[in-house]
């Protein structure tokens, strides 16, 4: 069968033989299993159990939260002992919500059975069963399989590609699974084909470095319409877009999915999980994981329960801590170093690599880029890694996007060939993160702008409303005044003035009263003058001159006051005229 050749690529030492000499083994059930709620792409699952609850093997412990999410099941029977944040296998080394199960050692299954007559079941029934089993893509990305297998009516699928490439060095999980379980794998592919409405073209893509696996598959695909396509080994052929190009010669446009061109690509481990789910009714609670590296005495594949800690695996593999240069989850090209061995195996963990210092030495010192161009030759996506490197250093997001940074599959081929040991992929990952962050911030700031503008508009509107209300009130008041004025007629203004004048006059003291007041004060003054004169007359004989002077002064003062009072009265009479009952008292006055 014709195959196409992708650009670039590298040929790192394969190191696959170490772990396939032994068949797939099993590990003793660990005492504690830790199941992270987010092992996949999409929303974390929602716990459905409480601490202290007893669960059976295969029982659901967390359900899918939304469409793009998967549920989690108990990998063994036991008790839920914790639901909290724990370290998980993530390059950040951060904590994430997990469910801890303490095993009771009985490993007792809950009652389960497959769909007996699945060959006649509707695709919908099968899809539901796949979703219920909590299957996420097992190749590494962990995309919920039920979502991938349901691309919708508007995207009919004509090609199903099963990815058995396993191009990364050291990893043999798929290889050994095919060798031992070829029949079940093919049955799984049959189910997938049924779900997708029997696409006309079903291919298993496999590199030619796995002749045993190809030989195991071939007898089972006879008369099934499935073709096993082998092609020359090259890293990275196992990327979804790369494999589709190799097998069909078609390229998936940037930013689109295989389903957009009528294709679906699934990992071969996923097909096995689908078979278990449909035929046997078993959810995804274990997977094949490669335990390899020179720091381990035993290199082999294990059927590992999800949630088993890496340290548990190491303990049963004759692990020599002092010989190990680092612990890697995944392969040497795309995997990431673990900061602790206490993290659990998840649905996407295909390999634990414990290399010796000879196998993967410490990173060589980084040297400046010499513009040799080897990275550009190695890039399987035909990008310009060194340009991306410069722009990443300069944080020039615009140019990074113009150079299609987001088409980078982070395969690490450029870093592998770089003679200056520049960690190119880490630059790209960092820049991708920065750009995504900037985009998220842009969305947020746009929202803030929109809300601010709306706020401003609302305030202006409120001010305007107030203004119109005020104007309306003013107008109404004016109208009311005008109306009342018209009712009383034009003469009313003069009446009001007259009334006001009358009120003011009433407040004033009348001239008669004023005159009487003055007369009273004159009478008082006369009395005081008389008394002063009497005192003076008495004192004449007996008193000294000094005392006489004082009395004389008092008489004078009294007389003066009397004169003042008379003057005021005279003034008043001149002004208002003498009132009728007024007797002129000036005649009786004593001078």
């Amino acid at each position, binding site marked *: 069968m014709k195959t196409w050749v992708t650009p670039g690529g590298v040929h790192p030492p394969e190191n696959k033989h170490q772990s396939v000499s032994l068949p797939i083994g099993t590990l003793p059930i660990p005492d504690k299993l830790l199941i992270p709620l987010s092992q996949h792409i999409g929303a974390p699952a929602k716990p459905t159990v409480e601490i202290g609850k007893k669960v059976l093997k295969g029982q659901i412990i967390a359900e899918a939260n939304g469409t793009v999410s998967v549920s989690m099941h108990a990998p063994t029977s036991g008790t839920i002992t914790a639901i909290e944040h724990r370290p998980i296998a993530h*390059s950040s080394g951060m*904590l994430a919500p997990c469910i801890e199960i303490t095993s009771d050692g009985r490993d007792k299954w809950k009652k389960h059975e497959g769909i007996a007559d699945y060959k006649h079941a509707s695709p919908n029934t099968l899809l539901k069963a796949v979703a219920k089993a909590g299957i996420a893509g097992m190749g590494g990305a962990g995309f919920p399989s039920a979502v991938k297998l349901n691309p919708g009516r508007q995207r009919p699928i004509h090609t199903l590609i099963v990815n058995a490439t396993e191009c990364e060095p050291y990893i043999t999980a798929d290889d050994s699974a095919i060798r031992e379980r070829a029949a079940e794998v093919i049955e799984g592919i049959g189910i997938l084909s049924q779900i997708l409405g029997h696409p006309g073209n079903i291919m298993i893509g496999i590199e030619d470095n796995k002749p045993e696996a190809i030989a195991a598959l071939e007898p089972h695909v006879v008369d099934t319409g499935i073709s096993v396509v082998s092609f020359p080994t090259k890293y990275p052929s196992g990327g979804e877009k790369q494999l589709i190009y190799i097998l069909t010669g078609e390229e998936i446009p940037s930013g689109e999915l295989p389903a957009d061109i009528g294709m679906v690509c699934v990992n071969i481990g996923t097909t096995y999980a689908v078979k278990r789910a449909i035929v046997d009714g078993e959810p995804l609670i274990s997977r094949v994981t490669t335990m390899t590296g020179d720091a381990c005495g035993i290199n082999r594949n294990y059927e590992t329960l999800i949630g088993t800690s890496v340290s548990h695996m190491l303990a049963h593999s004759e692990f020599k801590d002092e010989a190990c240069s680092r612990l890697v989850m995944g392969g040497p090209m795309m995997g990431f170093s673990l900061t602790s061995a206490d993290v659990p195996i998840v649905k996407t963990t295909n390999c634990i690599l414990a290399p010796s210092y000879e196998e993967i030495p410490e990173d060589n*010192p980084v040297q400046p880029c010499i513009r040799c161009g080897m990275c550009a030759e190695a890039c399987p996506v035909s990008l310009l890694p060194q340009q991306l490197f410069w722009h990443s250093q300069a944080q020039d997001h615009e140019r990074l996007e113009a150079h299609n940074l987001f088409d980078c599959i982070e395969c690490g081929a450029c870093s592998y060939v770089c003679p200056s040991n520049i960690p190119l992929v880490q630059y790209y*990952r960092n820049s991708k993160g920065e750009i995504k*962050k900037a985009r998220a*911030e842009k969305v947020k700031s746009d929202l803030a702008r929109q*809300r*601010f503008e709306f706020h401003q508009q*609302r305030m202006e509107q409120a001010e305007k409303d107030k203004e119109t209300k005020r104007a309306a009130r003013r107008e109404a008041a004016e109208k009311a005044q005008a109306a009342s004025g018209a009712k009383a007629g034009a003469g009313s203004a003069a009446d009001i003035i007259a009334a006001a004048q009358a009120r003011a006059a009433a407040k004033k003291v009348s001239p008669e009263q004023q005159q009487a007041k003055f007369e009273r004060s004159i009478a008082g003054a006369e009395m005081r003058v008389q008394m002063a004169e009497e005192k003076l007359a008495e004192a004449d004989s007996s008193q000294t001159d000094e005392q006489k002077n004082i009395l004389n002064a008092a008489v004078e003062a009294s007389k003066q006051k009397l004169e003042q009072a008379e003057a005021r009265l005279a003034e008043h009479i001149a002004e208002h005229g003498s009132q009728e009952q007024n007797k002129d008292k000036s005649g009786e006055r004593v001078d």
Partner: protein
Amino acid sequence: MIEAIAQQPILAALVALVGLGILFGGLLGFAAEKFKVEGDPIVEQLDELLPQTQCGQCGFPGCRPYAESIANGDAINKCPPGGQATINAIANLLDVPAPALDAEHGEEADAKTVAYIREDECIGCTKCIQACPVDAILGAAKLMHTVIADECTGCDLCVEPCPVDCIDMLPVEEGIKEWHWPAPAIPADLIASDRRASA
């Protein structure tokens, strides 16, 4: 008349040039009217670059007024929430040198913050609601208020009006979802002569 013009090459050239001038003048005039740009596009671009916290630390009541002021020649380094990144972006847009942040308007914060109301202490005075430039506080008179964290820009404006000081500015927590790879460490000098020079 055409014949007369044709016989006078100078006149013919003159007529041709004047004709072309009128024609293209008309075209340009038409285009200027037809494709007229509404508003000042530079203000839009500046507003896009500003962080939209609407915090007013620049001395303007919001990001857009500051953008307008920059377009009219104001300094570009008055935005602490945007920090040096925003200054650089604006400098790039306007093609001017990028100054350092003007410390008079505040310092660039290390982490993004979000307002948090200690709800049992809130007396329901609505003062913070009135202060919020993006309507991110929910509540009513004499009822407890709360901040819609997703809408909060971390502008700080609600903290000061609170009569019972029950609003805290908390750093936004970064979970595993927000995490991304850090930039690789910059390599030390490898060349022996460089090391000697720096030592």
